[in-house]
């Protein structure tokens, strides 16, 4: 599963159960985020033990994108059988500021900022 545009790419690596994000996400709303939402849903539906979101190369995320990730976290939390780990980067300032909100939605969610 992969989505690729000039501004960003999203790819699922089944071997490591990791969804890899690259680039900049500034789409205008839920409708525009639908493809990515769909990809994340399909990963969640497989109910793996853990899903890793690799955001180390996600340079920018707008609030509609935060909203998209939040919906995903809530969906996984409601399913109840999958844990989430977020891999981020200390070099990307928005991550230090906004990722912790996902933990408030799902306390078991792990955040690794390297």
């Amino acid at each position, binding site marked *: 599963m992969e989505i690729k545009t000039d501004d960003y790419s999203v790819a699922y690596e089944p071997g490591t159960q990791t969804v890899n994000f690259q680039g900049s996400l*500034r789409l205008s*709303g839920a409708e525009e985020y639908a493809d990515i939402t769909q990809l994340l849903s399909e990963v969640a539906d497989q109910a793996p033990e853990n899903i890793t979101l690799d955001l180390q190369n996600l340079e920018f995320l*707008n609030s509609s994108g935060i909203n998209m990730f939040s919906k995903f976290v809530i969906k996984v939390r409601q399913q109840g059988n999958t844990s989430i780990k977020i891999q981020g980067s200390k070099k990307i300032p928005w991550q230090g500021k906004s990722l912790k909100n996902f933990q408030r939605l799902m306390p078991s969610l792990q955040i690794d900022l390297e």
Partner: protein
Amino acid sequence: MNDGLPLEGERQMQEEIGQVQIFGDFNEEVPGTEEYLVIGFSPGSMPLKQRWRNNGLSADFLAEYLATFFPGNEEDTIKADKTIEVKSAVSYVANELLENAMKFNDETSQQPISIKLEMHSDRLVFFVRNSLKSQTIVKFQSYIQELLTGDRDELYLRQLEHNGQDENSGSGLGLLSIMNDYLAKVGWKFEPSPKHPETMTVTTMVQLDL
């Protein structure tokens, strides 16, 4: 919020529309800045979808422009990190403000949208101005009241949970994230457009401490 008859407070607000109203931390008289940048967007005939890219381009441009005023010494990693952090904050805040302005602007009003970034020694100040459809004003002002008086952490959580259940809502997270994640002070000024008093405009002011 109900969709039926207006509540007493809303009736009052409806009477006040057409006058100047200020909410939150709004102060146009921030003194002594010589450095600022203004970008103005003419009322567009191109649909919003096609113009959407401009929000990010403009926000990033403001961030880059600002960075030229930061005394730079490439070997000073603390300063370099601070510059990256501030640039990132400007990109995020300006992008969110422009997204909101573009989304809520009254396209029939033929009013331009503008963003101004003032550079002060201790803070950055954004002013974004757009027109508003009069029927959205009461709901917007109610939301502002909630933002100002409510527990914002709880509001943020509630908004995220609410968005998780509701397929169709707009995210409503822009202003909340600016206040909660970027610790910015926000204020709003509603006033009739000087040249076209039948059109209401809103100026959103955001202060980011440096």
